[in-house]
């Protein structure tokens, strides 16, 4: 194996064979070391969080990756190729000026024009003082009803966009709610006020670009109508074909009312879980 070890000879066969072998072994080791080094580097330079979200985003079904402009009816069909990061989307301004032609019918869900919405079913409400409040939207709230337990982060903790903001448990399922924005937590609402987080965003919320990635107005309507459609298909009775809705609104506490539904899939789709 090495000069000085019993059996080694300074012959062409030994030198060529062992050189080849060591070259291969060194290549393999270098590959692993390089992967470990790059991983460490990604964490040191805070690129890891973005990479994780991009990896998760790439695994989402195409139906979950629709562009906001398609949801608003500004384009016929467009799959987001920018991990919902409209802040850095080159196409954003090109489509944003087009007129929205989305749905006008009532969805039976409350969503407010002074709030912005994240695809992971959270809303964001900016305040005058430069802080924002984050809460669960009505569709998610109606699905879960009263959670069995809730695990909110502590005040002062840092939130990263698209990473877990808080966790809940309901009927044995763990739900991870994705953060719609990056920032520092400065307040937490309890069960009486409705669970929410108050955060000081890392970027200036008065800059239009900071909240640009969140849905608003007709985009919310288009998105929620698709979410309701998906939900209706997912919780239909077993072995029955999809049927047209005959009216009615989403009741609160659907998980309790329909315990036999495939909540693993429904919750994963709702909260963008992979």
């Amino acid at each position, binding site marked *: *194996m090495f000069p000085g*070890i*019993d*059996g080694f000879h300074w*012959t062409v*066969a*030994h030198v060529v*064979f*062992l050189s080849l*072998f060591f070259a*291969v*072994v060194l*290549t*393999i080791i270098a*590959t*692993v070391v*390089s*992967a*470990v080094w*790059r*991983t460490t580097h*990604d*964490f040191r330079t805070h690129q*890891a*969080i973005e*990479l*994780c979200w991009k*990896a*998760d*985003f*790439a*695994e989402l*079904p*195409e139906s979950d*990756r629709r562009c906001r402009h*398609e949801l608003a009816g500004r*384009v*016929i*069909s*467009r*799959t987001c*190729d920018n991990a919902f990061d409209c802040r850095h989307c080159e*196409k954003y301004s090109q489509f944003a000026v087009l007129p929205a032609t989305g749905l006008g019918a009532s969805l039976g869900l409350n969503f407010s024009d002074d709030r912005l919405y994240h695809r992971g079913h959270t809303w964001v409400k900016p305040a005058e003082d430069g802080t924002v409040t984050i809460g669960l939207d009505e569709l998610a709230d109606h699905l879960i009803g009263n959670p069995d337990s809730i695990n909110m982060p502590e005040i002062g903790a840092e939130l990263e966009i698209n990473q877990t903001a808080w966790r809940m448990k309901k009927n*044995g*399922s763990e739900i991870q709610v994705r953060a719609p924005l990056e920032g520092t937590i400065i307040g937490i609402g309890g069960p009486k006020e409705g669970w929410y987080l108050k955060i000081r965003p890392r970027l200036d919320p008065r800059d239009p670009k900071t909240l640009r990635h969140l849905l608003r107005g007709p985009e919310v309507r288009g998105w929620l109508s698709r979410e309701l459609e998906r939900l209706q298909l997912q919780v239909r009775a*077993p*072995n029955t074909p999809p049927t047209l809705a005959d009216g009615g609104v989403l009741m609160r506490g659907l998980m309790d009312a329909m315990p*036999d*539904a*495939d909540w*693993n*899939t429904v919750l*994963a*789709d709702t909260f963008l*879980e*992979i």
Partner: protein
Amino acid sequence: MASAALTDRRPTDSNMADRKWIARGEERTSLSRFLLGLSPWVVVLALGIYAAGLCLYYGLNQTNMDNRFAFGLWIFLDLGIIALGAGAFFTGFLVYILKRAELRPILNTAVVVGFICYSGAVAILMIDVGQPLRAWFTFWHPNTHSMLTEVTFCISCYLLVLCLEYIPILLRNRQLRKLPSFLVFEHQLHKLVPVLAGVGTLLSFFHQGSLGGLYGVLRGRPFAFRAGIFIWPSTFFLFILSAIASGPSFLMLITATVEKVTRRRLVPPELFRRLGFISGVLLAIYVAAKSIDTLIWLNITSPSVGFAPWQYYIHKPFGTPILFAEIVLFGLLPAFLLTYRRTATRRGWLLSAAALACAGILLNRFVLTVQTLAVPTLAFDEFLQYTPSWQEVASFAGVIAYGVIVYSLSYRYLPLFAPPKGESTHVSGD
């Protein structure tokens, strides 16, 4: 495979924890049915481990091998599964080096199959060597003039490469990917996989060849001894050719079996035809090379060492029909069926041809292992019969069971047939 049939749409409570480990949107059979399907294989594996333990504890007297029959069922298994596992390196080579992107959907399953084949082969070799505690001797004091040394080095390194290629697939499990460090490492390692594919190709090329070469250099066994080029006998090249010809066929068979069991379409039908065509063309080249080699061996090489060709085929059951079967039935025929448009477009014909191609490679490895040693070479020698002991058979079956279990678990919990990263993201209608 045990990852059996389509499931109930609504999982029961007992399946909830299990479902968390299964990729979102994927339907798998219930946990109880899955475990029930696996249980016979677990029993076989346990028996195999017990038999292997006996061999390691008491020594090779537990086998029916002896000084004359030093290669038996285990070496046949090693050669067979290493040849069939060649789909892993060859697919990696086609995708990453030759940029044949259409084969990507089968890449993950190729890696898992390759990992199973090579780890199974190494496990059996550890038992066969009989002194696993001294296994490091072969690295520390290598005999660089031995084909076996090259085989040992290359197989060990390639198994390491396969482990590294398997890790990104493993880390894409639904729960494991929730750990950011795992997900980022998977991402970075995945980017370096082309390097590993290149190294794997080099290693596989040499060890497939050396496995054949070690028979070709057996001057004392004229049934296997071959002329060659420089230091490499013709079997060196024939083993490489036959391995890369059968690898894609084996991948096709595995995928088709999983499709049948799960009643799902996992890869596009065009991919089967593409794999079949690659396999067929390479098999045709192999059959041509093998035919020329056989003619040279029968007419020149063998007579030159004092053996008339008929002497190899007078001992039943090793008659000339085996040679015919190897070249025509399991060589020429599947090569034709895999490449002829009318048969290649019909799934039944395609899979039958793939099965014939794999059977042909197994027959070739069997003949080279067993017939080589069975045929008498000295005046006082007799034709030797060899029947493996139950410990050999159990270890053999244990490796097969290990393969079924690992593949079933991988299919259930890992994205083996999911579209490759990033490719599912595209823009339309801008």
